[in-house]
């Protein structure tokens, strides 16, 4: 990982896109403090949350930031009942609850994610991938977090299930004013759900913009290559599209080092001055608008 900076605004969905090994998961885990950041700062509600922090802040963070995992098979404890899995966080944040109170919170959370309350007494083994993923979502919901880090939440699910989970995430965002950091490798999914998108390549952010802006005016050659590779479910368009291949050696950084620059309002790109100019001149019309 190289140095990476970005801000996530309250109530938005911030998409982080990159291919395998790009470091996108590392960023998510650094924010939720599973991995330690070796340098730099992470701020949440204006307070620094990396490195050593006080116990009170720690509690606040556990409550305020939650995570949804990629693999619905391994992200639930097979030896515990749904009841315990969903309520696990309450033991820390609300230690005084009685069993009945906890159960009612669990049942409410299950209903919210479209599952039946009677599932509370069952084991994860009994559920399908989509249902398990929703149990995982319920588990983070009971904490009433402000920020949810969703690390590839639908990539391990069946196609017909993905839409359910995406819809659920959007609905919960509207109802509860959640903020999402949505990490994925699939640009079409990220475009659908995100307000802003950051593209990461080999541990470096290369571009960041509002999602429609990014799709209509991708600047960095890597972003352009990624966009060109998205499969389009339309045979005529798809057969005629041109695939761009990103060659990392296309940059000439001998004279001027690249920097994180704001090429247009709110549209950032990793480039040197000369490159920014040439990118803007190109300002390509993306394939998706040709129709």
């Amino acid at each position: 990982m190289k140095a990476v900076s970005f801000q996530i605004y309250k109530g938005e969905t911030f998409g982080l896109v990159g291919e395998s090994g790009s470091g996108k998961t590392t960023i998510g885990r650094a924010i939720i403090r599973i991995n330690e950041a070796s340098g730099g700062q992470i701020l949440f509600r204006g307070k620094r949350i990396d490195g050593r922090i006080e116990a009170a802040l720690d509690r606040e963070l556990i409550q305020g930031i939650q995570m949804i995992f990629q693999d619905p098979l391994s992200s639930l404890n097979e030896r515990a009942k749904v009841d315990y899995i969903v309520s696990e966080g309450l033991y820390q944040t609300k230690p005084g609850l009685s069993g009945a109170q906890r159960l009612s919170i669990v049942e409410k959370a299950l209903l919210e994610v479209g599952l039946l309350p009677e599932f509370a007494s069952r084991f994860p083994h009994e559920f399908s991938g989509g249902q398990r993923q929703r149990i995982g979502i319920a588990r983070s919901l009971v904490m009433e977090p402000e920020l949810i880090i969703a690390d590839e939440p639908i990539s391990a699910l069946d196609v017909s299930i993905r839409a359910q989970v995406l819809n659920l995430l959007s609905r919960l965002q509207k109802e509860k004013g959640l903020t999402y950091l949505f990490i994925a490798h699939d640009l079409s999914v990220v475009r659908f759900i995100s307000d802003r998108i950051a593209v990461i390549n080999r541990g470096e952010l290369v571009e960041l913009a509002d999602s429609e802006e990014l799709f209509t005016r991708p600047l960095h050659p890597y972003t352009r290559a990624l966009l060109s590779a998205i499969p389009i479910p339309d045979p005529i368009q798809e057969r005629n599209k041109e695939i761009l291949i990103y060659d990392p050696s296309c940059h000439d950084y001998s004279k001027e080092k690249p920097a994180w620059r704001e090429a247009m309002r709110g549209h950032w790109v990793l480039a040197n001055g000369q490159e920014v100019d040439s990118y803007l001149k190109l300002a390509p019309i993306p394939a998706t608008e040709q129709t």
Partner: protein
Amino acid sequence: MNSTTVLEVRDLVVKFRLRGRVLTAIRGASLELYEGEALAIVGESGSGKSVFTKTFIGMLDQNGWVDSGSIDFEGRDLTRQRTEGEWMGLRGRKIAMVFQDPMTSLNPLVPVGRQIGEVLTLHKGMTKDQARSAVVELLDRVGIPEPASRSRQLPHEYSGGMRQRAVIAMAIAAGPRILICDEPTTALDVTIQAQILKLVKALQKDFGFTTIYITHDLGVVANVADRVAVMYAGKIVETGTAEEIFYDARHPYTWALLSSLPQLGVKGQNLYSIAGTPPNLFNEIKGDAFAPRNPRAQKIDFEYEPPMFEVSPTHHAATWLLDPRSPKVDPPPAIQAMRARYQGRAS
């Protein structure tokens, strides 16, 4: 399109025995494969699409068997082949297969070149030396740089995309008539995925084989397939040319598959989604298997299994919606939008 039939499957039923219970994985699927075409079989996990194609090369797992139906290929009924010897003349030679995960489908301890060479010495009767130079040519053809030195390396020295290229080289080495690609790109990054699909398409043009793609991703299908077959719960529920499936789908399951793609969604609105999960194949399925998940299901869907209705000579769908007596049901908005766009473009 050439309309000579290469392979014809009729009413195939495949069953598995699992811990004392019998599961019907394929429930009477029929399909034709035409010479030189690219056919995509689309379905989610558990729909039986992999099992279906495995019967073409006799590679069902030990506990599975073809219960009834036939598979005609070059005048033979493949379901009647029993011995290893009968299959060996076919596997890799006439029908080749590329598997999903290139990371695990090569033997980690044998040099890549040697693994490809095996096919040549086996099916083309080459000597080891002949095979060696043929392998280098093949590797070059599938776009592996420095093929001569690369062929001596072990799989772990290859990247994921390169491995899949090597596996493809292996599959086409004996000049098969049919190439089956089982989710060839799911394990790869999007950029690599596009390159691999392009490669297979180019090879198909050069070598003239017929391709079957198995995939769950309709986006991939649009790029490569001439024809699409949609599979649900062990049955083919709709077949048609790529245009017919994408612009004029008739089966509600196809609608669901298409319109749940985020590419077709409108931001800020819900994606069209289908509730529930596919049926348990251990149980007897009555009527239309998709009915319990279909909000617009009719009573007949729970009683009788729908036959294949003909939409056009190339387009068939198994849904009671095509019966003239059924009430009219409009496809979801995303499907209508696709159709409108297509018609707009055509006029």
